């Protein structure tokens, strides 16, 4: 199983729809300061429910919707297409699609997850993801500035990472 494509719509600085293809090997993302590299990582955390808004550098979830001088759409959406040929994701399909959409409303916002276009809850999604070894603590994702996190975490927290694997 691997990430085949990420589809960003109005997510943070991605005001125009962008689809990025990935392969099952080693890809780098590069570009000037402030160009949107870390926003792509935040999109992965967002759609898989791997993090709080603070980790995505937003005060509220609605801060994740593209917002620039007057252009102010009312929703943002991120979709990841996984290549599931090896059936590591416990569904019998070649491609598994995980989507999350956030919609701004008068009173606040809605945030919904979808698995193959069918609405699902975060806890249902997490059950599927941990079967394919994608854990909510996301030790397989290191956000910018956080590389020494495993050194500064407490010994108990560090031991818990091994518990999860076991």
């Amino acid at each position: 199983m691997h990430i085949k494509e990420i589809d960003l719509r109005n997510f943070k600085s991605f005001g125009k729809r962008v689809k990025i293809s990935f392969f099952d090997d080693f890809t780098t993302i590069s570009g000037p300061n402030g160009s949107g590299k870390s926003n792509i990582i935040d999109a992965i955390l967002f759609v898989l429910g791997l993090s709080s808004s603070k980790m995505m550098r937003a005060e509220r979830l609605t801060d994740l919707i593209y917002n620039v001088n007057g252009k102010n759409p009312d929703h943002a959406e991120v979709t990841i297409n996984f290549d599931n040929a090896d059936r590591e994701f416990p569904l019998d399909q070649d491609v598994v699609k995980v989507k999350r959409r956030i919609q701004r409303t008068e009173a606040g916002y809605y945030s919904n997850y979808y698995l193959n276009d069918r609405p699902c809850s975060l806890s249902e999604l997490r059950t599927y993801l941990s079967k394919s070894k994608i854990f909510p603590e996301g030790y397989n994702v290191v956000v910018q500035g956080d590389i020494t996190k495993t050194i500064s975490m407490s010994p108990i927290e560090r031991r818990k990472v091994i518990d999860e694997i076991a």
Partner: protein
Amino acid sequence: KKDTFMENFLAINAHFKDMFTRLSDGEGELILENWEDPFAGGLTIKAEPSGKAIHHMEALSGGEKSLTALAFILAIQKHRPSPFYVFDEIDMYLDGSNAERVAKVIKDASKDGQFIVVSLRKPMIESADRTIGVTMQEDNVSSVTGVMLN
């Protein structure tokens, strides 16, 4: 429960020793605070980069801490790979030769898993299979400028 934990711990520790040596020329080891009952204690890391005497983890330098943290993550990856790994500028503290070493180790690890790595440094970009360029246009809109194949 304890048996499964110990089985996983010993396997990961073996990978950690190997990975730490590859990344920093020194010796490292994972240590359980309570071997009798692992769940009653935590897990500390003994790190002696390039043959230095053992110090508190805190006293390690920025670069040494990065290498130690990476050895831990990649030891787990060797034992039980996740489908993908996403790293954002993990090489920012590293000097030239350590940045090259890390890039080689990730290139090697990418045989058993997908690695997506944000980086500004040449060693990482040159080791990757491809690089996705990102740029900011007017109106504050990010876009992908295309892909460079290595």
